[in-house]
């Protein structure tokens, strides 16, 4: 049996209200909020966050591969999935690939992972999809696009939902387009576009899968549809003979249209409340449409994601002003390219700073992040070995620094003692700085630290522990 073996959603902690955007432009608010990435988040960090949570619930805690799907990859040349795999400390023989250029890329990656598992190439492949699509300031899509990520593991053991059928249609129809030179998406949104593009392809893909599985709409417990806006998916479901109660809520009110991760994210949401035996029909659009039918197994009853979609949906720190939200979007892009980079240094430090591997003394068991040759406790040097460090810990001490470079000072920083040993010094994010205190349980999260030397630089930060 091949199917989903773990899943997780990653919604950034910040939100911007559509009222806030509308007020800035003296335009009409569509109501509700958008999930907004913090200035130090991008599609790669969100995907890594989702993948890390997903990995934690996989039996064995490791995967044979990592596929990354996005239309907003931080690197155009350099394997983004390779960096995420290193952040997850996957072994060098892990299968890695980037999928992009279409909102359907997440489904392409799911298909490729399913094929690889079916062909016996790997037992378990993690698919992480994320987007942080920027809409033009004041443009029509500014109140539509939100940011998020989702991760889905495909494997053949401990399957939570079996893949029954899958298949789709391609259509080079102009819906949303972004050239190599464009910072923003060009959207052809209109009734014509929805009918001729989205609805036609989605309907074809959904009918094909129902036919292959020999199922009727009434037999589907949950219809999980991506949507280009607030309501196109509801009209589509009705046209195909589904009842509104069968349709998975797209969370447009709370987070907006999230792009590439949308079908995976909503599938994760649907699986949180699905029951063994349920059929789920997933369909996602983008240059055509892809779909699959899944059937929940008995194992799903016992599975719980590390942090649920529902819990993340309910949370949220709001950007109180439009200016602050836009500054958060643009902050790192506006940083100067002054840094000089040594790839020698980067290669040497990868294990410590990216993979978060520390060292342990065989004599006294002391662990530390720095790869020192002598033990900091017993000073012996003959039994130091590399070990992976825990990604959770407790604040040992902290500071709330007004002078730390940030678009939104002050910045909370903390010395964190990791569970099982090792200590790291990093920023505390996703909470009010004045709530940081000694003893606060935290989890590590990879973030974009700075720009320069032709690179985005990533390093660990921490946030209050959510699980």
């Amino acid at each position, binding site marked *: 049996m091949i199917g989903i073996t773990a899943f997780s959603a990653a919604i950034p902690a910040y939100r911007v209200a559509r009222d806030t955007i509308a007020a800035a432009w003296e335009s009409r608010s569509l109501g509700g909020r958008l999930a907004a990435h913090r200035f130090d988040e991008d599609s790669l960090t969100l995907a890594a966050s989702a993948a890390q949570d997903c990995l934690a619930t996989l039996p064995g805690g490791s995967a044979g591969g990592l596929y990354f799907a996005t239309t907003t990859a931080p690197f155009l040349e350099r394997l983004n999935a390779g960096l995420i795999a290193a952040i997850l400390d996957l072994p060098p023989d892990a299968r890695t690939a980037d999928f992009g250029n279409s909102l359907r890329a997440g489904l392409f990656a799911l298909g490729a992972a399913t094929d690889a598992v079916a062909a016996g190439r790997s037992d378990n492949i993690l698919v992480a999809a994320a987007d942080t699509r920027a809409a033009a300031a004041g443009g029509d899509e500014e109140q539509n696009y939100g940011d998020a990520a989702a991760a889905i593991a495909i494997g053949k053991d401990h399957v939570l939902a079996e893949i029954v059928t899958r298949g789709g249609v391609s259509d080079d129809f102009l819906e949303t387009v972004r050239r190599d030179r464009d910072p923003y998406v060009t959207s052809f949104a209109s009734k014509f576009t929805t009918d001729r593009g989205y609805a036609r392809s989605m309907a074809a893909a959904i009918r094909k899968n129902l036919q292959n599985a020999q199922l009727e709409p009434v037999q589907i417990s949950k219809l999980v549809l991506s949507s280009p806006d607030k309501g196109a998916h509801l009209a589509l479901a009705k046209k195909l003979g589904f009842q509104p109660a069968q349709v998975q809520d797209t969370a447009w009110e709370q987070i907006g249209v999230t792009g590439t991760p949308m079908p995976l994210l909503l599938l994760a949401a649907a699986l949180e409340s699905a029951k063994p035996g349920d059929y789920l029909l997933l369909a996602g659009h983008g240059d055509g449409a892809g779909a699959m039918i899944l059937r929940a197994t008995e194992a799903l009853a016992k599975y719980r994601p590390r942090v649920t979609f529902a819990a993340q949906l309910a949370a949220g720190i709001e950007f109180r002003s439009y200016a602050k939200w836009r500054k958060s979007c643009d902050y790192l892009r506006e940083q100067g390219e002054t840094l000089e980079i040594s790839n020698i240094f980067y290669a040497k430090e990868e294990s410590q*700073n990216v993979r978060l591997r520390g060292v342990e003394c065989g004599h006294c068991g*002391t*662990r*530390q*992040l*720095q790869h020192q040759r002598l033990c*900091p*406790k017993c000073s012996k040097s003959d039994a130091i070995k590399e070990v992976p460090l825990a990604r959770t810990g407790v604040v*040992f*001490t*902290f*500071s*709330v*620094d*007004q*002078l*730390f*470079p*940030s678009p939104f000072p*002050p*910045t909370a*920083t903390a*010395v964190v*003692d990791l569970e099982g*040993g*090792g*200590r*790291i*010094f*990093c*920023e505390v994010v996703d909470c009010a700085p*004045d709530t940081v205190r*000694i003893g606060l349980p935290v989890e590590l999260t990879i973030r974009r*630290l*700075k720009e320069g030397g032709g690179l985005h*630089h990533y*390093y660990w930060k921490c946030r209050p522990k959510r699980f």
Partner: protein
Amino acid sequence: MDASIRDKVAVIGVGCTKFGDLVDQSLADLMVEAATAACSDAGVGLDELDAAWLGTFSPGMNGGKATITLADALRFHGRPITRVENYCATGTDAFRNAVMAVASGQVRMALVLGAEKLKDRPVRGLQREGIDPFLEYGTTAPGMFALAANRYMNTYGVKRESLAKVAVKNHAAGALNPKAHFQMKVTEEQVLKAPLIAYPFGLFDCCPTTDGAAAAIICSAETARALGKPLITVKGMGLAVRTGKPFLDPTCDYVGFPATQEAAAQAYKAAGIKDPAGEISFAEVHDCFTWTEITNYEDLGFCKLGEGAKFVAEGHSALGGKLPVNPSGGLKSFGHPVGATGVRMVYEIVTQLREQAGPRQVRNARLGLAHNLGGPGAVSCVLLLGRDT
């Protein structure tokens, strides 16, 4: 260590510029002013000096990085010059190295010069260092010391009000000192209401970034006696280095600075001091932040661990207290041009021991202690100087 440094080396001249935002003067200007003042105080010419030690922290070719900065400023050519850099203990360590050279007999008379121009650079505070990705990106000196302060305050239940008392005390002393960067008193309320810099430190809990230079002329005790100088000699010295990355070292408990305790133990042993609080007349300690002074009291043995806040609250460290600390105004009020600070402390101690400190004079000043603390507690240097008559 077998032979004690005690009574072997004398300070015969000191000089110090005004500390502050010296925007109209160059680093060379400050060096010349301090060195000339020290020479004139000692009654010797620059050409009579055999060697020089330059204490300066900031990197950069014109920031004092190289010995040529001193060589060219003073036309001090054809003789040995050594640049010392040891975090914020740079000045005291430059002095310590010069003292050892004089004690060895290799150098008859030496110049120790500490100088720093922190205001002439495009960055605020100190330059960031590329040891660790996070450290390199944006951590600040107040933020680093705040880590230690918050752990200490959490351990001993100390509040910001106790820290403010150090600022009030040191500003009161600085107000009496014409060379101090800040010569104004502050109230506890002003300190507590000032904008926060890095919790628990507000603006008045932090020492300023300052320009300045200080110099000392040293020679052997015999030479000083032969020159008929009042005998102020080095009684003891100590230097200790601990990890520069306590934030990555799981063995650091962030309560107390072992480097200070160890440097003090070395100095006390050399000087034969058993009861620091009873035997030391006054001290110039490293109050880079108000809290640092509180922990210094404990690490230097002026009071027990956890009782530093009480020590300042009861007035023991005030001018007129049983052990006046920072009668100069300290880093807090006098300013902190990193490499100059340690030598400036020597200047203050000598001035006090000669009873030339005017309104801020410590009564019966016989034995003075200078203490620097560098990095987040990584390096500490302690000096003891005494008057023999």
